[in-house]
């Protein structure tokens, strides 16, 4: 059986390999092309200041897309991330701005800043946990469970302030909660904090995906859930973890945005879930589950972010921006399908 493949001309095989490599790196190549184009068209595109601003924009989407990638790899979807961004911002903003008011004791508690951040992260993870419970225990389809969470979290965000913005979140030295804006505008070693967070989160997620049993289990659940169950993978636990992680990532994004603006608005993060999904898909994550990488997703987020910022700098109308983004996403999936076909052909050759 395998002997028949041996007489393939070496050259053709090599061509195929190069072709496959180019296809695999396509998102990266696209990113380079997009960067090259804009640096040519917009003079200050390549300036350090502009680069930093762009990466800070990208970081927000990348946080969400990293969490989303794990969810999609298990074969699920998380539509609630944008709403959790809004809710997280409002929770943090509320705790800083008006504290936690407990009418039955007649007191208002102001937490220290680290506590505020921790509570916000926990709220994000809890939102994910609720989605996860609906999906694993009550067998609700991920699309529906997280669609519900999308509305619930957004509603909760609006309820927290009655739809108003929490302004001026600089905190108060006397209350011990000052310093919140540092998250959004501070820097370590000259690099903005949010970019550090992206680096740490990205490396952590990529490590989990590649080098831990948890990562393998996540891929196996999306690749073939039945086989995963029979192999002793605790599928429900894995699903809980990915939705909670996605919620946590959303909360991080919410904190960073609120900190950058020094204000929390309940409508923050609307349609972010779609950008996050687009970034993951651009990066090669398969919506059918089982395939996707963190590196690819981050590059995907960069493509979307750079494309958006570059077009703004060139003065492209926002309506055209949307059309272009849509085309890029669809093109990415078309190329992805093409690569799949090529891959299965190569696999056939292997036989």
């Amino acid at each position, binding site marked *: 059986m395998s002997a028949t*493949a041996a007489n393939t001309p070496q050259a053709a095989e090599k061509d195929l390999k190069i072709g496959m490599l180019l296809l695999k790196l396509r998102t990266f190549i696209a990113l380079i092309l997009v960067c090259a184009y804009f640096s040519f068209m917009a003079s200050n595109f390549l300036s350090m200041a502009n680069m930093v601003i762009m990466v800070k924009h990208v970081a927000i989407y990348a946080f969400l897309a990293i969490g989303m990638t794990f969810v999609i790899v298990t074969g699920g979807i998380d539509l609630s991330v944008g709403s959790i961004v809004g809710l997280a911002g409002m929770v943090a903003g509320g705790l800083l701005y008006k504290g936690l008011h407990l009418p039955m004791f007649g007191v208002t508690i102001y937490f220290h800043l680290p506590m505020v951040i921790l509570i916000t992260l926990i709220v994000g993870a809890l939102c994910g946990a609720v989605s996860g419970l609906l999906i694993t225990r009550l067998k609700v389809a991920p699309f529906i469970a997280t669609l519900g969470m999308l509305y619930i979290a957004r509603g909760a965000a609006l309820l927290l302030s009655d739809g108003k913005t929490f302004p001026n979140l600089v905190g108060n030295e006397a209350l011990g909660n000052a310093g919140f804006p540092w998250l959004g505008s501070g820097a370590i070693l000259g690099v903005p904090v949010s970019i550090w967070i992206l680096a740490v989160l990205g490396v952590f997620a990529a490590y989990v995906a590649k080098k831990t049993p948890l990562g393998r289990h996540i891929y196996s659940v999306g690749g073939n859930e039945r086989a*995963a169950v029979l192999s002793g993978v605790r599928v429900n636990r894995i699903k809980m973890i990915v939705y909670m992680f996605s919620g946590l990532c959303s909360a991080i994004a919410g904190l960073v945005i609120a900190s950058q603006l020094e204000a929390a608005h309940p409508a923050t993060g609307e349609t972010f879930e779609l950008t996050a999904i687009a970034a993951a898909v651009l990066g090669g994550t398969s919506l059918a*589950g*089982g395939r996707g990488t963190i590196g690819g997703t981050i590059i995907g987020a960069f493509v979307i972010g750079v494309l958006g910022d570059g077009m703004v700098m060139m003065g492209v109308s926002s309506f055209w921006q949307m059309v272009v983004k849509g085309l890029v996403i669809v093109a990415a999936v078309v190329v992805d399908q093409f690569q799949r076909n090529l891959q299965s052909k190569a696999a056939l*050759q292997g*036989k």
Partner: protein
Amino acid sequence: MTESKTGEVILRAERITKIFPGTVALSEVDFSVYRGKVNVLVGENGAGKSTLTKILAGVETPTRGDLILEGEKVRIRSCHDAEARGIGMIHQELNLFPNLNVAENIFIARELTTGGVHIDYREQVRRAAKLLERLQAGFDPEAQVADLRIGQQQIVEIAKALACDARILIMDEPTSALSQDEVEVLFKVIEDLKAHGVSIIYISHRLEELVRIGDSISVLRDGKMVEQARMRDIDVPWIVSRMVGETTHKERSREDRVLAGEALRVENLRLPREGGGYTVDHISFTLKKGEILGVYGLMGAGRSEMFECLMGLHKEAKGAVYLDGEDVFASPVDAHIRKGMALIPEDRQREGLVQALSVADNMTLSSLWKFVKGFHLMGEKLKAAVTAMIKDLSLKTSGQNAPIGSLSGGNQQKVVIGKALFTSPKALLMDEPTRGIDVGAKGEVFDIMNHLADQGIGILFVTSELKEIMAISDRIMVMSKGRVTGMFDRKDATEEALVAASAAGHKPVEHTSLQ
């Protein structure tokens, strides 16, 4: 060759060559289909049987070569084209719509309509009922396909082919999911079709079956036609020797050995069935260390369900299961695996493998806990272990990171076996481990089983093939309708006794078998 003696050729493939990118699937193949006969096509997996039949059915087009139908050179461009010329195919994988009912499935894409728009539902049901009656199916044409057993679905597939009045009917492994009773019915249908002048191309791995039903036989090996012969001139060893080539197939059997200690003890295991009764009906047995206990039974005898209960997959199951003396019954699947119970599931593709993962990732999926330090997977250790396992199993792969889909069926099965072995099992549950793999790979799987048993692993082994179970088992347990209906030592087991026991749980059947 013996064409003149066998009869008139209705369809002839001449010098068919099919080249896929990088591989020659068929090379200069000549193949004759005789009118009103059962034309058997055999070969190991990857020999090119499926490619050849797909060309005849219009699914693939040949790179070179001619098809001559009734003396006239034809080109078959699509399935639809083939159907119009009276060539029908029953695919190995079921191509049914579980969300539609039986009649709707039978007439899919050729609905009976009035005015081309309105489906004549009642006429469809009436004709479907007639077809099902002819096939002695015993289920309702308005039943949802999703509610049917696999064997029954296979019958729907056959009815579908019959519905379009095929002159030439290609059957690719039609019996792989059928019970013995259903096989008998199918054979009767085949006789009936032959009498009506329908020519049948029949593919199966079950060699005894071929000898019984076939009129002529063609053997493919590595994409080439090795030999065509009349069935009455040859026998099973002839087929095997032509299929595998020079390597002779030696009869594998186990020596009688002294067994010590119990690996697995099952007491009163039962799984309630929806709507009363039990799918697994109060089963008790002991599996000794180093013993191969064969489990024989028909489709639906509850063998796979018993395995699932043993693994802890059914919460509603009751009973007691002791693994190496320890009660493991209530623990979840992953705890079962860690304690030393491993399952090799029946359906490799759906239950055994994760297609998106590589050979190495699939192999180690159940045993990652062995390669972990804290939270970290030790890549080097894992790689070395996989390399050793690939060597132990003489697995043929282009590398441990090769995609699982690039392996042949037999090698994929070895990956599943490797996955189970990585968990260091004390009791190994193998559900039809030789299903759908070729003769050579089957022999290798048996060798592996023998080797494992020698190391003291208790093996519980389910198969539907009598010859297999007689050759490899130390003891044979027969199940029927969820109950144990026979327990034989290898010395006392006869094929007749096993078959009789496997039917014991069935009520007196309405339709007795022919012959």
